[in-house]
Structures are given as C-alpha cells and as structure tokens.
C-alpha cells in the first residue's frame, strides 16, 4: 500500500532532481542521507529545497524543526512533510 509518506517522498525526489540536475536522485531509497552522504546536498541547495517545500506544501521545516533533524534522510523529511502538508491552509 502506498502511504502519504511514500507519495511525499516521490515528490521530494522530483524536487531534488530538478534542483540539482541529477536524475539519479529520482531512484534514491528513503533511508538515503541528504547531507554528507550519497546526495551530499550543499547548504544553498538545501535552502532551495526547504523554500520549495514551503511553497508547494505549506510546510516551513526550518521554523517547525529548529534542529533540522527532519533533514537527516529523504525518509525523515518525507515523514515530517507528509504529517503537516495541507494543515496550513
């Protein structure tokens, strides 16, 4: 069964691939670290990712998760966003 988190993870993969121009990010597993691991996002791209999440899903990750623990992996970010998307409006 496809969960809301799975759907959000797929959307986040598409955002990541668009921001970085790296199509291989369309296939990364949910447990993939976003910073310092396979994806190795730099801080500027990470900021663009968070701004796009806020624009598209209405979730301000930086404001709601001050330690940014949600950014550990694709899966933790998808879970965080899926639980909050749509709540703002």
């Amino acid at each position, binding site marked *: 069964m496809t969960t809301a988190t799975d759907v959000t993870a797929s959307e986040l993969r598409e955002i990541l691939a668009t921001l970085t121009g790296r199509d291989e990010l369309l296939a990364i597993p949910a447990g993939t670290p976003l910073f310092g691991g396979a994806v190795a996002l730099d801080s*500027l791209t990470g900021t663009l990712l968070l701004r796009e999440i806020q624009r598209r899903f209405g979730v301000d990750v930086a404001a709601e998760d001050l330690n940014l623990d949600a950014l550990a992996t694709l899966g933790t970010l998808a879970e965080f966003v899926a639980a909050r998307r749509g709540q703002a409006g």
Partner: protein
Amino acid sequence: MAAHPASPVPAQPAWLRPSRPGWPGPAQPAPPGLVLPAPPMVDLWWFDARAEVVRPADAAVMDAGERRRARALLSALDQHRFQVAHVLLRRVLAGYLAAAPGDLRFGRQRCPRCGRRLGRPVLLPGPGPAPFFSLAHSGDLVLIAVAARPVGADLEQDRAGCVCPVAGVLHPADAAALARLAEPDRHRAVIGCWVRAEAVLKCTGEGIGHGLSSLRVGLASGSTGRNRRVRGCSVRGLAAPPGYQAAVALAGPDAVTSRPMAALPGPG
C-alpha cells in the same frame, strides 16, 4: 578556464602534487616553508578538480571518515571532487605544519549558539600551533583559506535555475535590496549575498540551521564589494573565476585582506 583574475599569482608549489618531483611521499612530511600570514591577511588556495589526479596512494592520506564520505557519494565525479578537496586540504595544511598529510587529525568545535558539535572544523592539537582554515568546494573548484585567526570561506557556482527564493532567508534589508534588482542580475546578487553570509557563519562556527537572517552582508558593488563588519568578523567578496562567486571572512576588527597562493591550473 581563464586564469584567476588576481595577480601576481604563484604557480602551485611542486610539493602539492605527488605526481611531480619534489614530493617526499604521502606518508612523509611536506617540505617546510609555508608561513602563516599575519592578520588580517588570509592565504587563499584555489584548485580546479579537472586538473587533479587522485591515485589510491594519494587518497590513502584521508582518514576513515573521509573515505567513508567519499564512498557514499553516488557519482564518480562527486567522489573525485570530494577526494581532491580533502586530499589537497591535507597537503596545504601539512605545508604550514611541515607534517605528513596523513598524520593530520580533524575535529569539530561546538556551535557557539547551541553547543552541538557542528561548529567549525579544526585541526586537533598537535606539536605546534594549529592554523585556522576553511574549505569550500562547488562545481569543479576548490577554495582553501588559511589564517592565523578563525577564518571562513565560501564558494558557489552559479546555478542554472532561479535562486530568488533564497533571498527569503537572508537579512530583510538585503532581501529588500535584492527585490529591487531585475533578473538575471538578481540571481548573481543573491549568490553574492549568500557566499558572504556563509563565510561569516563558517568563521564564527555557527551552524546554518540558526539561519542567515540576522547577518546583514549588503549587496556587493563591482565584482567583490567592500569589507563589512558582521558578527565580529570582517567579510569581503573575492575575485573568482567566471561562473563562480566567493567570499572570505576573518575574525577580528580589521579589514580582511588576502593573497592567492596558487594559480588555477585549468583543465588538464
């Protein structure tokens, strides 16, 4: 690629490249000779990853954590760029310490805002005073800043897409000034503000998770702009190769100056 615009710029010392004569080998100390610049001077080392070859013996100077991070990267190109940045960081610092690159040990200071060990990377105590350093890499380029005081450097390659959303995380006065610019000038100005703000954060050791909105770095006039005092640092944009922007920040009240230590070799 065009040569770095600043001049005169010395060629890379032969000992930085093990494949050239003069290097005593990755396990042996680098020849002595590099002296830390007196503040507010910062030494800037520029490299082009396309011109660098990292053989297995060269990569062996990295520690287990660096090797693990390199292996985790998805593409061979990203792995190469990471190895170039971290092997050359070790060689450069070894040149100031007359130490073997593989003997250097790195740690992280605590973030001065939250106390988490996510602050500035530092050399762990050795026999002599450790130089302060900052490593930045983006696209094909690597920038290493070395100084006698805490230093931060940032380097960003221009992006193909729109970066205007980033303005929303910058200082409100800077964001307002950026909003008055037309594209594509605004895109370049956004990246310019970003590298100056990042250089300040890397200098103070604050994690980027604490945000950039309290750092008013201003829009640069001309290619690099003037010195600004931000959060106890002096920050300034740098003349960077086409397609890139860079900045350096130095702790302390006096205006930061810099000297390029190696000419970009360009693609081999």
